[in-house]
């Protein structure tokens, strides 16, 4: 239950090809994250899967059945929206019970399921309130509750945490991950935040301008990005990308090295002048002006005391340099 296959799925709005053609398999029980910059078509893809938009071409299969032309209600998918989309005129209990009511379930069973969901999500005390009387995090939980009572084949999340403050976002992130551990149901999660993608996903799908740039586990993408786009998008701070003579030494058009893979001190081959330094306590990020190499971001662990204007030497850690060709794709 919960395997979703996209075969050459396309979507255009009028003249504009928002999604030119996507092939993707989402396995049962997987936590898949669609990540990419704003406007790249993540929401559109999710809404195609949900059935809220018609495809312009291609086939969507859910559990082996062609669902391309099924209305949303028949796809057995549940969705959590960015705005939560709670029914403002209904109590929390009625909100959560709404899909069950629509399915014609009897009242006793409805109650049982609502209470069960409320227990999982710690909503017991709020069941008789209206959404307007809840905090952002609580509303988010109600939206999730409304999704889980239906026991859907898969959950769809569209940037569910982007309306929450930073601290709450971290804890909700963990709650959703735990929920996935408990339910073991397929989840598709859309975000533009690569940290969310890295921390939550079993499988990340990186999208750019409606195309899939790479599919893989978080560590796959981190260790071996398929191209410059993924290299630049995954990882924080961003990977350093260097072209020119230094890249040519490695037989590449561009080379990439992550900030955490540059060692400071000793007699490293690179030299630069420290510009800005950001002290986070556990880490220090330095912006180093390295002449022909451009500005490099370097991560120094702990309390390394560097100052503006210091000249330092740096060395890339062995085997950590990634090479890219003229077309932007990674070289083997």
């Amino acid at each position, binding site marked *: 239950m919960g395997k979703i296959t996209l075969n050459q799925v396309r979507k255009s709005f009028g003249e504009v090809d928002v999604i030119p053609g996507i092939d993707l398999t989402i396995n049962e029980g997987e936590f898949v994250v669609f990540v990419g910059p704003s406007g790249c078509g993540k929401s559109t893809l999710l809404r195609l899967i949900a*059935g*809220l*938009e*018609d495809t312009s071409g291609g086939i969507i299969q859910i559990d082996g059945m062609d669902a391309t032309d099924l*209305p949303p209600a028949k796809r057995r998918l549940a969705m959590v929206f960015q705005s939560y989309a709670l029914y403002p005129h209904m109590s929390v209990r009625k909100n959560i019970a709404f899909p069950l009511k629509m399915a014609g379930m009897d009242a006793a069973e409805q109650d049982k399921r609502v209470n069960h969901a409320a227990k999982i999500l710690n909503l017991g005390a709020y069941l008789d309130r209206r959404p307007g009387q809840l905090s952002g995090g609580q509303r988010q939980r109600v939206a999730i509750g409304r999704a889980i009572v239906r026991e859907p084949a898969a959950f769809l999340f569209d940037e569910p945490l982007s309306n929450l403050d930073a601290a709450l976002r971290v804890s909700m992130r963990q709650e959703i991950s735990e929920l996935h551990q408990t339910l073991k149901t397929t989840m598709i999660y859309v975000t533009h935040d690569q940290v969310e993608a890295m921390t939550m996903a079993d499988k990340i799908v990186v999208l750019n301008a409606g195309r899939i740039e790479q599919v893989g586990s978080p560590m796959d993408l981190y260790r071996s990005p398929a191209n410059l786009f993924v290299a630049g998008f995954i990882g924080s701070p961003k990977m350093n990308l260097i072209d020119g003579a230094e890249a040519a030494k490695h037989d590449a058009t561009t080379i990439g090295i992550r900030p955490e893979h540059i060692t400071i001190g000793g007699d490293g081959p690179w030299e630069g002048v420290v510009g800005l330094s950001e002290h986070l306590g556990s880490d220090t990020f330095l912006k180093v002006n390295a002449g022909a190499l451009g500005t490099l971001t370097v991560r120094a662990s702990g309390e390394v005391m560097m100052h503006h204007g210091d000249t330092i030497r740096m060395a890339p850690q062995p085997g950590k340099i990634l090479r890219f060709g003229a077309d932007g794709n990674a070289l083997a």
Partner: protein
Amino acid sequence: MATAHSRTAARLMLSPAVILLLLWMIVPLGMTLYFSFLRYNLLMPGMETFVGFENYYYFVNQPAFWSALSNTLILVLGVLCITVVGGILLALLLDQPFWGQGIVRVLVIAPFFVMPTVSALVWKNMFMNPVNGMFAHMAKSLGLQPFDFLSHAPLASIILIVAWQWLPFATLILLTALQSLDREQQEAAEMDGAGWLPRFVYLTVPHLTRSITVVILIQTIFLLSVFAEILVTTNGGPGTASTNLTYLVYAQSLLNYDVGGGSAGGIIAVILANIVAIFLMRMIGKNLEA
């Protein structure tokens, strides 16, 4: 939002409204247009003949037409002047803080809810009647001769009655616009050292311009077809002194049974209204995009 399924449903649910309005637009208006080219008198059924533009010719060339046209314009302009100027002043006054704002607001709006036949009759009998009306009583108590408003100044009297009905509308809309003025913008201007007058001229007036335009256009649409007020006060008279286009068409078709001539008049009224409507639609259309 849109899938083929929901689009089909949308089309289905939209169609009753569209079809009904389409019929309402086309059928009677088409018939009016058709009649306007016939010699057609209700007293002589079955004698209809096609006469081309003759009805238009006679309708336009009767002396009553030109007086009706000028009465229509005077009525519209007169009421507009009173209601817009009065509305602005009243709105500015009511926008100030004072005790009992809510109650005064209610008092000012009330005339708009009075049905036209009631307000016309009340003004005609209780106020403008030369014997027992309040104005007559007041004149007499000052030792003056009572004035017979509806006989000697019929159009002006009707303007007064209609303006009384529409002043609340203008006031209400302008007051709403005033209250949606950006307070922070006003405060910023005050910090910048702008006094009351510059703030009024450079911030308030531009903000009100749009609402004033809306008031003018919407009132014009309604004022072009004032009817009940004339019917129950003067019946268009004396002579044609208070006959407007709407009343003339009514008199020609239903009082004189001249369907052809009345229809030609109706088409002329439609054309007149459309000229105003085009401006109004532009305004509202622009607003729809914003």
